[in-house]
């Protein structure tokens, strides 16, 4: 049985990763999950300097999902390299994907340049849903021209293959996928969170200090499957699918829709071993269905 998948020349022992921002750099979940068994660890978004993030409350529960407005709190690239990358050094079987954020093109490039010499970094994942200060607050991920520009610049500087992480908060996700592919992206990942809002009817005010937050969890899964399917039929680059995956069925569904690999986010919060449980379930499915190679199910449903 083969569970190995390859994305932009990088080989993963299996297609199961955790989603950026839900797992730190793996340290906090090491008590529950042998990180060496994951396809990849995808680290929390890191910028060129520490970001304090948003005021609290930063998280809220919604039916079958959650909202978050963490605001990309992170220690900045220097601490990240010294501490988090050094920590990940010991997990040789697992690939390391570093998620990158920035308020401006320069900030993205600073991080990408800083990581160029780091051998432990197998791939970069560029989060284009960050607040774009320079261009008036619209995220790079909502305008195909801006997404193209970021991708093109990042590709000029990056020494590792580049995954562009797409926001679902757009009218046509395939337009975004095509734009970043045309600009040279090696892979795409989707979906990031969907912008939502929750109001406390007793207090008659917003639950999140930020008013809006990104929605994730099982409730968004069908949207994610649809978007992965659409992108798989619109671009040639490999896709990492995510959004509401909590069981092996969800992961297999995402792969049938066209994802070469999958990430598990919110599910870690209520099942710390979700990633490994999904991997086991997927292997059982392969046995039951006589699937020799997991790659054979990618995009099977047309």
């Amino acid at each position: 049985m083969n569970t190995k998948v390859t994305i932009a020349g990088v080989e993963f022992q299996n297609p199961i990763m955790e989603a950026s921002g839900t797992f730190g750099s793996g340290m906090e979940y090491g008590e529950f999950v042998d990180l060496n068994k994951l396809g990849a660890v995808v680290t929390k978004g890191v910028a060129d300097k520490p970001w304090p993030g948003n005021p609290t409350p930063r998280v809220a529960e919604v039916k079958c999902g959650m909202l978050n407005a963490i605001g990309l709190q992170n220690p900045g690239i220097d601490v990240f390299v010294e501490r988090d990358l050094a920590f990940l050094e010991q997990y040789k079987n697992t690939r390391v994907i570093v998620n990158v954020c920035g308020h401006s093109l320069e900030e993205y490039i600073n991080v990408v340049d800083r990581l160029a010499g780091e051998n432990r970094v197998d791939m970069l994942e560029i989060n284009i849903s960050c607040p774009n200060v320079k261009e008036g607050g619209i995220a790079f991920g909502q305008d195909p021209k801006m997404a193209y520009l970021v991708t093109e610049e990042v590709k000029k500087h990056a020494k590792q293959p580049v995954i562009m992480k797409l926001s679902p908060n757009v009218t046509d996700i395939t337009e975004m996928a095509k734009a970043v592919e045309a600009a040279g992206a090696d892979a795409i990942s989707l979906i990031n969170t969907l912008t939502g809002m929750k109001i406390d009817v007793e207090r008659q005010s917003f639950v999140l200090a930020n008013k809006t937050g990104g929605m994730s969890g099982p409730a968004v899964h069908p949207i994610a499957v649809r978007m992965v399917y659409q992108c798989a039929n619109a671009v040639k680059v490999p896709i990492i699918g995510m959004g509401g995956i909590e069981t092996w069925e969800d992961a297999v569904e995402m792969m049938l829709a066209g994802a070469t690999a999958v990430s598990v986010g919110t599910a870690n919060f209520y099942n710390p071993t979700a990633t490994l449980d999904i991997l086991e379930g997927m292997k059982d499915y392969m046995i039951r269905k006589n699937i020799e190679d997991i790659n054979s199910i990618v995009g099977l449903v047309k």
Partner: protein
Amino acid sequence: MKVKDTAKVISQSVLAEGVYSLIIETKAANYAVPGQFVSLYCQDHSRLLPRPISICEIDKDVSTLRLVYRVAGKGTDEFSKLTSGDTIEILGPLGNGFPLEGGKPMVVGGGIGVPPMLQLTKELEGSVTAVMGYRNDDMFLTEEFVDNAAELVIATDDGSVGTCGTVVDAIIENNIEADVIYACGPKPMLRALAQYAAEHDIKCYVSMEERMACGVGACLGCVCQSTDVDDHSHVHNKRVCADGPVFLSTEVEL
């Protein structure tokens, strides 16, 4: 060590209006210390996020934890229906407990901040003064504090029992002296207490609350403002779940 466990409900009882005492059997009990909490998960899977509840009592001999909570919404309402023999998914013990310091201790609890002070009272050395604040005479756990503390002082909002006013009013009225204060309760109470402690040069530990998602320090959902730069993100945000919930009152913005 933290464990994800299917805990067995040993018993549940009502202590006061809307306040429940739940005893669960779980291996998490073997690692627990006073001041830590556990995440409880709902059976109704439309509610995904954990409900953090402080540990009220620990019995390592029989691997049980006692949790005392107030019904505050749908999740805690679900828990209130648990009966002996049921199971509940938990993650814990989480966070850092109260450091057991020397000197004369005073434990202070306000409302649903009273329960975590019980196990602490049992483990502290020296004669403990317990100062507990309630809304009215519908009190809970007072007998346990009478049994385990050297002295129990009560404050109620409506004056039906003890000092009419806040726990700080009760401390002043009863002239309570201490070298260390340990406290859990609503933020205004913690703020007043921290100020009192600073004025009297008393070391003060406070247990903080914030909305949580992971409970283990990974998501950065539950931060509180810290006076110093934090070790995790090198900003001024400490994670209540992993760096707390217990902090020195001078360490955090109250």
